[in-house]
């Protein structure tokens, strides 16, 4: 069941309390991310796409199906759009157990010629829900609820998955775990998705294209690695700092740490990172905060920090409050963003083109 060209054509206007949601998007990204701080209109946008808000004006079509066209008073109701919507608070049905929740969309799946039993089995397997199936919703933890809500949407045979802040209600380690589930879902099911998030790291890990919303307008648009490096975005995302996201292959498993290799053409970069579940050969997503990286102009000796990789400064960026260096570690790998002080830039006379070393501790890398 391969769907080619899920084309979004969206033009939307909707006055909200403090600003107007006003945006246009036309594209065919399978994984579309919508980034913005809270109150930027991203959840409202998702609700308009879902059909849960009827007051938007403009038009919306998905894969050639017209979902809304306000000048012709055309509005396809939410139950006819065949979407899988996973809201931030999950909203599982409290009168049914986990299995009952997963099965609630069975009728629609069958109506659309989907083999429900097979889909159900696959969802249970991918999201590791087997042991939760007979549990009541009130006996599930936050991460488990998230997985059941995701499974419920997947089981109903949607043609588009809408995720609203899938990780926001979870903390630290759990966030990583659910992120891995989301990646698994992305790689297992041939489904286009729209993911709303205020966390650049999540969107970099998941999406092939992002829209950055600010006060209801599209501020930037493009490939996540590039968009999140653009100057204006730093300030939009300032509360969280910038996180460098990269994918590596697990090559060595130690007692407390593991080694990740990042391919970069000629030779691989090896990084020592905290222990992660998995076997040699697994692909692992890691992130590194921009202010956890040091820059050295010569190769440092006798350091406790385990990671020291050669790089070249590409650019020095400045925002209102902070300075960043963008350092390339290889042509096939996204560049790293390093936060610096003005003094450091001056004293090391950092400028584009010079060779440096990026230094960071094992524990600074989050996997």
């Amino acid at each position, binding site marked *: 069941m391969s769907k080619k060209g899920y084309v979004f054509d969206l033009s939307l206007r909707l006055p909200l309390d403090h600003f107007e949601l006003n945006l246009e998007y036309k594209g065919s990204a399978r994984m579309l991310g919508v980034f913005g701080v809270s109150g930027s209109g991203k959840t409202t946008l998702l609700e308009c796409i879902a059909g*849960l808000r009827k007051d938007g004006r403009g038009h919306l079509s998905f894969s050639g199906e017209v979902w809304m066209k306000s000048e012709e008073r055309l509005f396809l109701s939410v139950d006819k759009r065949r*979407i899988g*919507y996973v809201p931030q608070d999950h909203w599982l*049905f409290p009168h049914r157990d986990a299995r009952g929740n997963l099965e609630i969309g069975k009728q629609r799946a069958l109506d659309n010629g989907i083999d429900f039993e097979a889909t159900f089995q696959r969802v249970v397997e991918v999201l590791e829900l087997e042991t939760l199936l007979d549990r009541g919703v009130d006996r599930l933890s936050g991460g488990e609820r998230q997985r059941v809500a995701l499974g419920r949407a997947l089981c109903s045979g949607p043609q588009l998955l809408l995720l609203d802040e899938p990780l926001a209600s979870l903390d630290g380690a759990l966030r990583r775990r659910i992120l891995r589930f989301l990646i698994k879902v992305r790689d297992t099911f041939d489904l286009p998705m729209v993911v709303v998030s205020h966390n650049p790291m999540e969107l970099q890990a998941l999406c092939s294209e992002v829209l950055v919303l600010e006060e209801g307008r599209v501020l930037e648009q493009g490939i996540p690695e590039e968009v999140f490096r653009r100057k204006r975005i730093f300030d939009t995302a300032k509360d969280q700092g910038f996180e460098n996201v990269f994918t590596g292959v697990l090559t060595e498993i130690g007692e407390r740490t593991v080694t990740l290799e990042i391919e970069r053409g000629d030779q691989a970069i090896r990084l020592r990172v905290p222990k992660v579940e998995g076997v040699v050969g697994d692909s692992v997503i890691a992130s590194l905060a921009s202010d956890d990286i040091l820059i050295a102009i010569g190769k440092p000796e006798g350091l406790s920090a385990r990671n020291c990789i050669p790089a070249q400064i590409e650019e020095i960026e400045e925002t209102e409050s902070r300075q960043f260096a963008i350092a390339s570690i290889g042509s096939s790998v996204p560049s790293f963003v390093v936060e610096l002080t003005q003094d450091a830039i001056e004293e090391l006379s950092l400028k584009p083109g010079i060779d440096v070393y990026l230094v960071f501790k094992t524990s600074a890398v989050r996997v």
Partner: protein
Amino acid sequence: MTCLVVAVPGIALAYVLARRSFWGKGVLSTITTLPLVLPPTAVGYLLLRLFASDGLMGEKVLGFDLDVLLTWKAVVIACSVMSFPLFVRTARVAFEEVNPRLEDMGRSLGFGAWRAFTSITLPLASRGLIAAALLAFTRALGEFGATVIIAGNIPGQTQTLASALFSAQQSGNESVANRLLLVALLVGFVTVYATERLTRKSRKAKGGSR
């Protein structure tokens, strides 16, 4: 019987009052509540005028005789009208406690509006609705004023627990009156207690799901 007469329009009206906002909602809600605050005899008199042969629901307007007055039908009508507000108010709270987001979720999973109502809202509000029906039942059981006016107090035909108790007391038949009192106490206690338990549990169940 009364419970059934009240339940269907009661659920519909309660749902509409809980979910929709429309012009005249306040007025509709007030009219619904009126029988609760009016003297029961006033409601009875109103019904009498309505069903009298020259009333709106009488022989002259309808063209045929509904034959309501002084029959068991009159009892049902009087009890229904009097217990309707109580049912609607309780049912409305039950619906309001079900978050509309849950209906939205059902809709997003392919449910039409009716299906979302029957397989999500109704089961989630069921405890509250049963409580509403029980309350309506007790109210109907205690109905006296309106019933006496349009149905009279004919033993074996239109006599209710309330009117039978009245007759027994008036005629000095104390042993009958005592027995009726006991029945009334028992039925009243059981239903109110059950209602309390139902509403408390449903609140707890829904609180945990948010």
